[in-house]
């Protein structure tokens, strides 16, 4: 079965910490980074366990501030 492998990049300084992206991830790897505060004063969203990412782009689709870039590779 073909397996999709994804990679997401967050431009953390554009994030406003609204948490919308954390609700749509099918593999639940998008979380808020409570240890950091970005230039705007919010806890930015980030990804844990990037290996699990399937590159579905749901997070980028719902992000109101275009913080996220998504790349994807299909392995046969």
């Amino acid at each position, binding site marked *: 079965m073909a397996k999709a*492998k*994804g*990679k997401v990049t967050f431009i953390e300084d*554009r994030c*406003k*910490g*609204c*948490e*919308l992206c954390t*609700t*749509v991830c099918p593999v639940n790897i998008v979380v808020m980074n409570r240890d950091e505060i970005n230039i705007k004063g*919010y806890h930015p969203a980030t990804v844990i366990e990037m290996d699990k990412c399937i*590159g579905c*782009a*749901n997070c*980028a*689709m*719902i*992000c*109101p*501030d*275009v913080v*996220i*870039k*998504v*790349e*994807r*590779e299909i392995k046969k």
Partner: protein
Amino acid sequence: MAVVFDRTKGLTSKIFHYCPGCTHGVIHRLVAEVLEELDVLGKAVGVAPVGCSVFAYDYFNCDMHEAAHGRAPAVATGIKRVHPDSVVFTYQGDGDLASIGTAEIIHAAHRGEKITTIFVNNAIYGMTGGQMAPTTLIGQKATTAPYGRDAEHCGMPLKVSEMLSTIDGAKFVERVSVHNASNIRKTKKAIKKAFEIQLKGEGFGIVEILSTCPTNWGMTPLEGLKWLEENMLPYYPLGNFRTPGEVE
């Protein structure tokens, strides 16, 4: 790895001024993506409204024009008639379009102006501080309806899409929502269709997009999405009210 999602060229690099979780950002991006995909950024002219999205001209990477409150369809009419080859769209909120701008939107639709209107309905006045809009739901609290909207006193919320779908000049009327990823994808399709109809010269197109206003609803962004789904969807049903095929 192939890039499947990146910032569209249809947006400038400026950071949106919207509150955290405001879905205006999503809708801006969808419109910009559609303009880029249709390859019309060079000839697109947007008309910005008054309301939260008043600075839309800073965000769209195409020619933009600011209109007086509610008058975006009138300004767009002028632009489209002088430059028929341009792709003209208005971006309006519910306080702008459904209240002070009702006359303009109805008559732009009635004349069948070949423009596209993106109507963002979040059931409240955002920029001015959460006053009751014509689209505010029954029982919904607003600063000018502290006990909730009362139908006896203020009437029922205005269903703009249903109203415009009775007008012959309006060739494309669809209501969509942005409360989850699949609906956002559907919203993009509807916006694309509305622009294609303008490009074919068929007539007026409007996409009503249900949106959130977490700040003035007094909720977190996540509660806002849930509130939209549970309260707005039953009163404002999603779907297409009119497509060109039906009209003939």
